[in-house]
């Protein structure tokens, strides 16, 4: 007991020394973000670790069914090769570990390097810059290690247990676990370092102001690539088996395939093509590590030392190119001062605020991944048909759904909350035009894509009738979706605190998923039916319009009942005073 106490007191004394304090400071900044403002979504370390561990653990548990010997016997699988059967699952776990770790690195993108606040607080103190650099590097290594271990811990225990559980030799399970743990750990490290190296290289190659400007787009692109890897993780393994026959397959360029090759190499199951990719994995890991290290060191020297000279502001003059669009919209669609001022504010926040651009871009990225998969499966080995298939019809619907839901989601994310006093001061809180403004913003983002991109494509391939009907259906359903999403919306976007977690949040999330299927799959099937029979087509359009009108009226009546603009999402009162003695008023 005494020994333990003395160790604890030694540790307490150690972490209060200058260098460990610097490391802790860097870890806090990386973890909680650079701004640390009240609008940052602050998650505790414990909660984050729990969230990161869930996917691997959950996916492993689902596999007990596949590898259980009793269930195999029931299925009549007498000759079961566990290593061959585990290949697709191994690929999935590699992708999962890369996606989760890459996602975390993307989240920490802005705080990997010390920021202006660190500079102002630390540089005047008698601490060498090299020590600040070293402390930050150690913080990155600690957090990366923690993240990698956490992401892969559950799958490293449960997956080998499910595969090796039915095998007579314990050695098999141990070997399997060792190889799996090593491969997923290296894959995670590769993913983290790849994102890290991208930040460092961009910072190194581009002027700082340009780096700040393009950062959200690069992050969105990387996030889309990670999502694409995850969404194809069930189809790629079957193609990997064909690798020996197609040596020039594009699969050779996928990093998860390299690590699968490395895994097979360690298990002695790799054919020459996979073995080659396995060696490539180790080579790529070494290259990425070296790149990350060099880029980090050089960009640290280049940027941190000159941090006060580098403005965080976007370069050049703002808003000059867009002013004619606002004048045009003022004439055509923006009727009141609230709508005119609000529209300018919303558009500028969406285009200039990194977190918002990133979140909206993420939703659009998901849409693009799903749409490209749908397009691929729709045209896989098939030519053009007189009528487009339901899959083909659903593509603009998928993109519109993800874009609209993304923008609606982003509206709830606050931007510089402390600056919202101007709206609190000037806006008439009893008149609620927020839904009208939000609807205009959403439609201004989605409609040009439908009219200027989707419509000409359908016109080119399927003629006027199909393209016009499709345009009509898309517009009606887009308006319907917008109306549904804006029921109860009483905010000026970005000016309200984060919505509180409500018990209905899980149901809302499920509604979004079901809404996706209703909006994309069911609508496109109904539309296909309508296209093949014109009378039904007319009925379908009329019913769609009626549904839109009903939802529109419901939303209007909701506004009339609760008309007050919100700046703070406060919890509902546990008790409500009915004021019966005052006549209920």
């Amino acid at each position, binding site marked *: 007991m005494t020994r333990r106490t003395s160790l604890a007191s030694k540790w307490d004394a150690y972490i209060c020394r200058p260098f460990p304090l610097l490391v802790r400071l860097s870890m806090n900044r990386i973890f909680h973000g650079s701004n640390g403002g009240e609008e940052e979504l602050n998650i505790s370390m414990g909660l984050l670790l729990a969230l990161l561990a869930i996917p691997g653990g959950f996916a492993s548990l689902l596999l007990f069914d596949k590898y259980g010997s009793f269930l195999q016997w029931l299925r009549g699988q007498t000759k079961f090769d566990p290593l061959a059967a585990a290949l697709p699952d191994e690929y999935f776990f590699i992708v999962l570990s890369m996606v989760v770790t890459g996602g975390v690195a993307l989240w920490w993108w802005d705080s990997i390097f010390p920021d202006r606040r660190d500079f102002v607080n630390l540089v005047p103190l008698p601490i060498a810059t090299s020590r600040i650099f070293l402390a930050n590097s150690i913080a990155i290594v600690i957090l990366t290690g923690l993240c990698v271990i956490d992401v892969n811990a559950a799958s490293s225990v449960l997956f080998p247990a499910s595969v090796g559980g039915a095998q007579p030799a314990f050695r098999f399970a141990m070997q399997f676990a060792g190889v799996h743990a090593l491969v997923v750990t290296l894959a995670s490290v590769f993913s983290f370092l790849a994102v890290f190296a991208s930040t460092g290289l961009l910072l190194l190659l581009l002027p700082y102001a340009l780096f700040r400007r393009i950062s959200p787009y690069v992050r969105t692109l990387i996030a889309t690539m990670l999502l694409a890897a995850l969404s194809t993780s069930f189809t790629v393994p079957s193609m990997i088996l064909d690798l020996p026959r197609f040596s020039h397959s594009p699969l050779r360029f996928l990093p998860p395939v390299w690590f699968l090759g490395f895994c097979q190499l360690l298990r002695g199951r790799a054919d020459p093509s996979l073995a080659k990719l396995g060696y490539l994995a180790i080579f790529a890991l070494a290259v990425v590590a070296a790149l990350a290290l060099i880029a980090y060191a050089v960009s640290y020297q280049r940027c941190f030392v000159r941090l006060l000279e580098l*403005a*965080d502001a976007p370069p050049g003059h703002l808003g000059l190119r867009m002013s004619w669009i606002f004048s045009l919209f003022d004439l055509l669609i923006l009727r009141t001062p609230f709508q005119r001022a609000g529209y*300018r504010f919303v558009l500028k926040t969406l285009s200039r605020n990194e977190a918002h651009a990133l979140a909206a871009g993420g939703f659009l990225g998901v849409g693009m991944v799903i749409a490209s998969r749908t397009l691929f499966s729709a045209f896989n080995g098939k030519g053009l048909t007189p009528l487009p298939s339901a899959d083909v019809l659903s593509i603009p619907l998928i993109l519109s759904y993800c874009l609209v839901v993304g923008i609606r989601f982003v509206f709830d994310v606050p931007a510089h909350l402390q*600056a919202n006093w101007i709206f609190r001061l*000037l806006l008439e809180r009893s008149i609620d035009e927020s839904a009208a403004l939000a609807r205009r913003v959403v439609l201004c983002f989605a409609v040009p894509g439908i009219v200027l991109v989707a419509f000409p494509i359908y016109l080119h391939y399927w003629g006027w009738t199909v393209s016009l009907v499709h345009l009509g259906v898309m517009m009606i359903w887009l308006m319907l979706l917008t109306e549904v999403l804006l029921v109860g919306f009483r905010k000026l976007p970005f000016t309200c605190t984060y919505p509180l977690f409500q018990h209905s949040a899980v149901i809302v999330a499920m509604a979004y998923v079901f809404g996706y299927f209703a909006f994309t799959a069911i609508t496109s099937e109904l539309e296909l039916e309508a296209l093949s029979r014109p009378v039904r087509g007319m009925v379908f359009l009329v019913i769609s319009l009626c549904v839109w009108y009903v939802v529109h009226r419901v939303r209007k009546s909701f506004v009339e009942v609760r008309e007050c603009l919100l700046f703070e999402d406060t919890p509902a009162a546990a008790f409500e005073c009915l004021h019966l003695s005052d006549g209920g008023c």
Partner: protein
Amino acid sequence: MLQAIELTKHYASIPAVQKVTFQLEGGQILGCLGPNGSGKSTTVKMITGLLEPSRGRVLFRGEDIRRDLVSYRKRLGYVPEEPNLYPYLSGREYLEMVGILRGIPQPKLGKKVDTLLALLSLYPSRHSAMASYSKGMRQRVLLIAALLDDPELLILDEPLSGLDVSSALVLKNLIRALGEQGKAVFYCSHVLEVVEQVCSHLLILRQGAVLVCGSTGDIQKRIGHSSLERTFHHLVDDVDPGQVTRDIIDVIRAA
């Protein structure tokens, strides 16, 4: 023009402001003084309508401001204590947005904004994001935003904070000129010299309550000190600044 009647604000049963009563007429410049935590900011927030009083009322031209906050705010210009602005907007974009929200017609608005930006030396950086502005530049943007719609009542909370010497001189003259034009100005500050130079009336708060309220000359005559600094020290300060200074130096020198 503006009347605060027994304004009281409690934060979770802790009183921040208690029964603050004062009156501000057109042409008067009322300086609000008080040590940190005396309730100045809470009072300002209540008279701008940003904060609802726990008790008491604010009347503007005899009408409770809560009855029609929008028309009250239409006639109010406000410069808050902290220059909290949207850093990704340019100064011109921000002012244009404020002008639109105030209902100023577009062609007139653009011209007015540009002229005011030029007069307050912000024209060259009007299209730059406010993230790159200094504190003084942000303060000048806030000042333009407050003056844009020719308000009858001006509430200024530490408006000189961060301003350079020439901008501060311009602002002091401007406040006096606005007073002469018949506008009511509520001026909150810690800088006693400026309050002495600019304000015709004084409101001194301490621990959330009014310590003294009236014309600057009357108060000084009553207390018997010629300078505002001595008057303020006489009314508010419990500590001897000379003794505190000596104590601090002793602590710094201690091994």
